[in-house]
């Protein structure tokens, strides 16, 4: 089935996630969708699969305009999607997951379904035990199950969103062979990924998205430099961070294994010096968040050891890390970093406990000073959820105790305007000059290069060795984010 998307628009609030996107996928081909974080790939395929609705534009299947507003619509037209996070039912068995759908008769015919599942699985060389519970399966097996279900429902268009994260090499080979076989049968396959390697190995054509827009469309094979350039689309800015690195070790990890819900991240050895800034690059969900949470003691190390300034801290609680001047600033300001329902004043009080009773006048002074120093647009009595994103971030920074040995931050400037961004980094660099080490994750490559001393790249369940930011080129970074270390 040929798929034709034309002039698709989608807004989330004021964010234009898909801006006039047009795309044609021919039956019998595997079409790659490439792009970095927030490029709009997932939004586009979720629209095609009916999971979210588009604001404007048309979808044509085999030349015929169709209305897709719910997953049921999409399934009826033969469009099936494998979501990035498995959309299945862990406590139910493999067979029940296979049968959980609206098509088919009133009665569950277990025997027939099991037979169909086995036949389909055998065709692709998958091996799934129908009686096993999905909670016992690996991510790769759950993916196989979902794919077989979609095929048995007669999917003619198969969409896969970042399917190769967290699956084994064998499973990847099986997946690619299966997709090739499906394309050869005349199905259209849309393969969403940020990994150059996978796109090159699998796809016939590739469309590159950047900031919600289509920036290029090429047939493969094509030189990877070209893809990298389209993906990132610019020459990276130069490092501007002054030298602040001291030769004391602030944080050290050895033989660390960090568990995420999809994979285990291995880190042989890492030392972070006082005053040093380490940028964590890579597609979101590649383990940066788990890494930062682990360094803050919010998450436990699965294996290995961790030291702060020479003192072993493995398996110590978050409180102990806080006492040693380690602070974690999560990306999701309102669900993790700040407490909705409490005011700025109350946040300041929480951070500076002193005695049993709250000295309101004292806290008020502290809050006013913080508001002034950090130019927060709000009063001490303002509820944090009423602040704008930028002011929430300023509040988070204002809440950081002083002095600190290590700051662990996710997306320090996400959603901020240029002025606020510069201002945030001024504050952070001032901290470095006092000897604080900073580790931050960002999806903005400019930010990584500009402000880091060294960079760690996270991709596909792996993490690179630390790289000197000064000598790093855009190409190099692009390749590594694309999974080529």
């Amino acid at each position, binding site marked *: 089935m040929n798929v034709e998307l034309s002039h698709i*628009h989608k*807004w989330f*609030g*004021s964010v*234009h996630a898909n801006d006039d996107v047009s795309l044609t996928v021919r039956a019998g081909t595997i079409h790659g969708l490439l792009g970095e974080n927030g490029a709009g790939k997932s939004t586009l395929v979720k629209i095609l699969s009916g999971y979210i609705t588009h*604001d*404007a534009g048309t979808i044509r299947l085999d030349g015929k305009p169709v209305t897709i507003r719910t997953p049921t619509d999409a399934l009826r037209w033969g469009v099936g999607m494998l979501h990035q996070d498995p959309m299945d039912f862990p406590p139910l068995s493999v067979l029940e997951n296979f049968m959980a759908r609206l098509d088919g008769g009133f009665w569950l015919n277990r025997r027939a379904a099991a037979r169909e599942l086995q036949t389909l699985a055998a065709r692709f060389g998958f091996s799934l035990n129908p009686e096993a519970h999905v909670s016992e399966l690996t991510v790769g097996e759950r993916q196989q199950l979902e794919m077989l279900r979609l095929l048995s429902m007669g999917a003619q268009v198969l969409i896969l969103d970042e399917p190769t994260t967290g699956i084994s090499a064998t499973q990847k080979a099986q997946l690619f062979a299966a997709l090739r076989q499906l394309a050869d049968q005349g199905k259209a396959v849309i393969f969403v990924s940020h990994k150059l390697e996978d796109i090159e190995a699998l796809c016939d054509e590739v469309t590159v998205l950047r900031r919600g827009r289509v920036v290029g469309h090429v047939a493969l094979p094509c030189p990877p430099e070209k893809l990298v350039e389209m993906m990132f689309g610019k020459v990276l800015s130069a490092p501007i961070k002054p030298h602040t690195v001291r030769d004391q070790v602030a944080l050290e990890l050895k033989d660390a294994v960090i568990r995420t819900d999809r994979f285990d991240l291995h880190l042989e050895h890492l030392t972070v010096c006082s005053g040093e800034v380490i940028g964590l690059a890579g597609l979101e969900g590649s383990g940066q968040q788990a890494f930062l949470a682990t360094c*803050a003691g*919010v998450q436990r190390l699965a294996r290995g050891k961790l030291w702060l300034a020479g003192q072993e801290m493995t398996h110590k*609680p*978050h*409180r102990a890390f*806080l006492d040693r001047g380690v602070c*974690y600033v*999560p990306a999701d300001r309102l*669900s*993790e*970093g*700040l*407490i*909705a*329902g*409490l005011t700025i004043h*109350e*946040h300041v*009080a*929480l*951070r500076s*406990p002193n*005695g*049993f*009773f*709250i000295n*309101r006048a004292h806290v008020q002074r502290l809050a006013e000073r913080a508001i002034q120093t950090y130019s927060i647009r709000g009063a001490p009595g303002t509820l944090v959820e*009423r602040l704008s994103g930028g002011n929430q971030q300023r509040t988070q920074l204002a*809440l950081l105790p002083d002095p600190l040995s290590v700051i662990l931050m996710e997306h320090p400037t996400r959603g901020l305007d240029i002025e606020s961004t510069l201002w945030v980094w001024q504050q952070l660099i001032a901290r470095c000059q006092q000897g604080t080490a900073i580790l931050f994750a960002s999806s903005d490559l400019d930010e990584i290069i500009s402000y880091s001393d060294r960079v760690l790249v996270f991709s596909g369940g792996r993490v690179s060795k630390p790289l000197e930011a000064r000598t790093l080129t855009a190409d190099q970074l692009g390749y590594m984010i694309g999974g080529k270390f």
Partner: protein
Amino acid sequence: MAARTVRVPISQPGVYQVGALVAAVVFLAGLVLAVGESPLQVFAALLRGAFGTADQIGRVVNTLTVLLLCACGLVFTFNAGLYNLGIEGQLTLGAIATTLALRLFGEVLPGPVAIALGLVFGIIGGVLWGVLAGALKVYGRVSEIFAGLGLNFVAQGLAIYLVFGPWKRPGVASTSGTEPFGEHLWLGTFGRTEATPVSVLLALAAVAMTIVLMSRTYFGLRLRAVGQNPRAADILGVPATRQLLLAFALCGALAGLGGALQVVGNFHRLTPTISGGLGFLGLLVVMLANFNAAWVVPVAVFFSALSVGSLQLPLVLRQVDSSLAGVIQGVLVLAALIGRGLRQERAAHGD
């Protein structure tokens, strides 16, 4: 196409809450009309029943003191994000522990000392039951709702067992409870009413303590932080486990004290239904007061007056059962919840 503007939800004047309240009152009036009585007469009868005589006022005050203690305790658990449905059990266990203390010491120690010991025992009993629910929640990951409900029945089962078993009245056991304690173990009263000054003082102290703890101390602030968002609180350095257990302990202590007062101030014995449903009523009070300690007082006064005032209803107006009080309380809280929900839903959808 222009980019959508993002609307910030603004708290509108509570049209929905007022609307829900009006609907509630209309519904209640209709209900009374349906059984063939006049709403105004019923209202007058309720007022007379609650405040008509000094005796009745005394009874309102006694109910109010226990209700306030429970409600204050629940302010802590609600603010910690917990539905402490186990409050009835905490109340009952407080009463059982007090009875135990009075049986042990009532005849060997001077009356006031025994009563004081009884109050302390009551507090300990309530704390035990509260912390048990807390431990099940924190360490056993059992929902405090189901654990609490279960523990209520266990506590009540224990009370029934004691009343009919080891502590039964000489002669024949009966649902009216254990043998009443001697008058030296009764709390002194205001004149000839049933209201006891000690209860009033304790309840007022509890209210003051709750208001101060919730609004002036780090303890209250941490409790609210954990209740609003345990994960963010943890990242900001407030460990949830301790706060949750403390909330359960405090609530248990206050409810246990309430149970103790039921024994030494109201019933002077242990009965199988010693809690009188005041724990559950406390939950309604705090929900209607929107979890705010200061608002708890007027709501509790109103609810106590309703509960006591309604007892006379069937005598005055033949068609109206005393359960009307519970109906009014329930309908008001339900209306408040739905009104709040409508407003939030509206705010979330722009206009």
